[in-house]
């Protein structure tokens, strides 16, 4: 097979094997001889706007993201095009190969019967209950905590794009690689970025993720003012669908309701103008009928067995806004930043299954005797719950709608100590360090102060010095920091 050698727009040597390895809606993909990058050539005749857009993406937008203080932070979140080339009248983008975590190590069951070992971990493998159940090697599946982490990674990456004024325009499980074993995600296909008023979208998106208003107006001409095209608002819909699918392994709008006997028309209506949440609280006409599912899709395919509310109150509220209030009112959809914040706080409310079942983790449901919703095992042992409050004006504390479950391996970090700190790309090295940990001793839980100089037992008025433990008991109040934004925790005891 012949090798093509070129010099990129950025003046670097670029080579690829002259054989298409994959084709998308817009591009043909070729791979470099050393398999460290790919070159994607746009099939349609190049125009000035495409060239300009790719140049901006590979230079200015890229530099804004990666050449800053927090630049390193984002390297794992995006597979960003680095350069452009021209060959035989076509324009191409140079994109680095994905990290090895995004290729199957074990693949499918029965010694990889499907021969997917070494293939990329397309999200659909993990977003479908039956694919997970029937085909994936258990070592590939991760657990419910890693799935929450995947959702956090995606939300973060989308939030960063949106912050820069960019829309991805084609978020889907094809364009988001995930690694459930480590809880990571990476956005790919960045070359379709949409900039309002500057760069229009090429694609309407991928089925399952296209916003209802885009589908409902797709018959109109591109220039028609009523036509809705991909934007940050439609990205918000796609993001909510991705999160729902990675947590519940089913699609939020695919239920029983038939809108038209013609399958194509029915699809258009059920994903478009008549889209209806399968778990809508009052309209039950699109409920999933378990008999319609393959047996391997259960229990996740049936919302009655795994309702979305199991993701806890913070995510439930956002799903309500995305699929009830905001499904046909795009301005009401939660932003990526809101998902990020809710996911961070939800991950503090997660607790391990006492039986160590496959899903392994669940969100505390505020009951005294929590039961793992995945396997039905009751939580064994004492379970302290820390309710976080923070000072807004001196001396008065407000509930932060943030709880931290105490279990073996849980820690306190600066973002628990002070409400003005948030775990994101702006954390300093010092802020990434643990400041407290929890330890079980003779049947009681203790919080050990590692690096909280102002820690104080409010109940007794005593300071808790660095290195000292405090026993966690019902009603105990501990001030973690006396500084502005410092938090007070109130202990609630659950479990038995």
């Amino acid at each position: 097979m012949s090798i093509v050698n070129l010099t990129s727009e950025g003046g670097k040597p670029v080579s690829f094997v002259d054989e298409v390895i994959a084709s998308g809606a817009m591009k043909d993909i070729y791979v470099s001889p050393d398999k460290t990058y790919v070159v994607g050539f746009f099939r349609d005749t190049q125009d000035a706007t495409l060239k300009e857009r790719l140049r901006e993406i590979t230079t200015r937008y890229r530099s804004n993201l990666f050449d800053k203080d927090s630049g390193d932070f984002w390297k794992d979140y995006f597979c960003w095009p680095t350069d452009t080339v021209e060959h035989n009248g076509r324009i191409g983008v140079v994109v680095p190969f994905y990290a090895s975590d995004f290729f199957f190590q074990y693949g499918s069951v029965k010694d990889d019967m499907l021969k997917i070992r070494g293939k990329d971990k397309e999200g659909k493998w993990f977003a479908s209950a039956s694919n997970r159940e029937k085909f994936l090697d258990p070592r590939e599946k991760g657990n419910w905590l890693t799935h929450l982490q995947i959702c956090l990674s995606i939300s973060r990456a989308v939030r960063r794009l949106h912050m820069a004024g960019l829309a991805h325009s084609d978020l889907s499980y094809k364009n988001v690689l995930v690694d459930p074993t480590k809880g990571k995600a990476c956005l790919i296909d960045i070359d379709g970025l949409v900039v309002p008023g500057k760069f229009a979208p090429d694609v309407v998106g991928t089925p399952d993720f296209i916003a209802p208003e885009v589908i409902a107006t797709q018959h109109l001409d591109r220039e028609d003012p009523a036509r809705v095209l991909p934007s940050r608002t439609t990205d918000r819909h796609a993001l909510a669908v991705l999160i729902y699918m990675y947590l519940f392994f089913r699609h939020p709008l695919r239920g029983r309701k038939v809108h038209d006997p013609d399958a194509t028309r029915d699809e258009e209506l059920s994903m478009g103008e008549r889209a209806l949440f399968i778990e809508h609280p009052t309209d039950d006409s699109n409920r999933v009928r378990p008999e319609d599912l393959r047996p391997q899709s259960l229990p996740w395919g049936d919302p009655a067995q795994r309702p979305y509310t199991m993701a806890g109150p913070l995510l439930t509220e956002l799903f309500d806004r995305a699929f009830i209030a905001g499904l046909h009112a795009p301005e009401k959809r939660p932003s990526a930043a809101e998902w990020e914040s809710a996911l961070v706080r939800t991950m503090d409310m997660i607790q391990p299954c006492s039986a160590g079942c496959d899903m392994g983790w669940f969100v505390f449901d505020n009951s005294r005797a929590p039961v793992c919703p995945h396997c039905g095992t009751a939580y064994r042992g004492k379970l302290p719950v820390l309710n976080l409050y923070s000072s807004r004006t001196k001396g008065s504390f407000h509930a932060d709608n943030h709880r931290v479950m105490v279990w073996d391996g849980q820690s306190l970090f600066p973002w628990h100590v002070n409400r003005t700190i948030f775990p994101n790309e702006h954390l300093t090295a010092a802020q990434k360090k643990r400041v407290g940990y929890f330890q079980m001793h003779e049947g009681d839980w203790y919080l050990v102060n590692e690096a909280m100089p102002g820690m104080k037992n409010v109940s007794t008025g005593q300071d808790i010095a660095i290195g000292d433990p405090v026993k966690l008991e019902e009603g105990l109040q501990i001030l973690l920091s006396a500084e502005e934004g410092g938090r007070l925790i109130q202990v609630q005891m659950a479990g038995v």
Partner: protein
Amino acid sequence: MRRLPVYLLLDTSTSMRGEAINAVRDGLDLLVSTLRQDPYALETAYLSVITFDTSASQVVPLTELTEFQAPDIDANGATSLGEALSLVANCIDREVHKSDMDTKGDWKPLVFLMTDGAPTDSWEKGLAAFKAAKPGLVVCCAAGPRADTKVLEAISEIVVTLDTADSATIASFFKWVSASITTSSRKIDQNRNDVDGVDELPPTPAGVNLTKS
């Protein structure tokens, strides 16, 4: 759960003997193994194979991808295309679930027809039955220069011609078939008056030429 039924109608007449029929066997294997690696197809696509020579027969009924067993295919006999069309119409009526107001049925079936010659039976009657079965996207493939494209154009607006019926080109065709069964991003400007589904077809590889009438 909507299934995507896929019917492959393959010419197994004497003229396909040799390299062509071997390439079809390999192509089928390639198609199935590629689709098994696609999580969307794996969940949705069901495959059936109908061969036609002196008569037509459904050698593989509509089957889930993981259950699919490659059929024994030999090239021998005439080209009963009309009978194949009647048979696939019959299979669609029998195997594809229709929607009613209470239950979602299957997607409209995709039909890929491959032939290297001209029909030896009266194909018009078969065509009428085929159209009445309301298939979804229908792609006719003229494998090599001897195929009667006029007949194929009467069957579908979408005809692909293979420059030659050699193993490389037939392999490319089957690869393209597998790509057209999987899902991908949709372009903004779909010509909505166009043939149902043709916009969603992937670009054809070298040696495989797509014509839309």
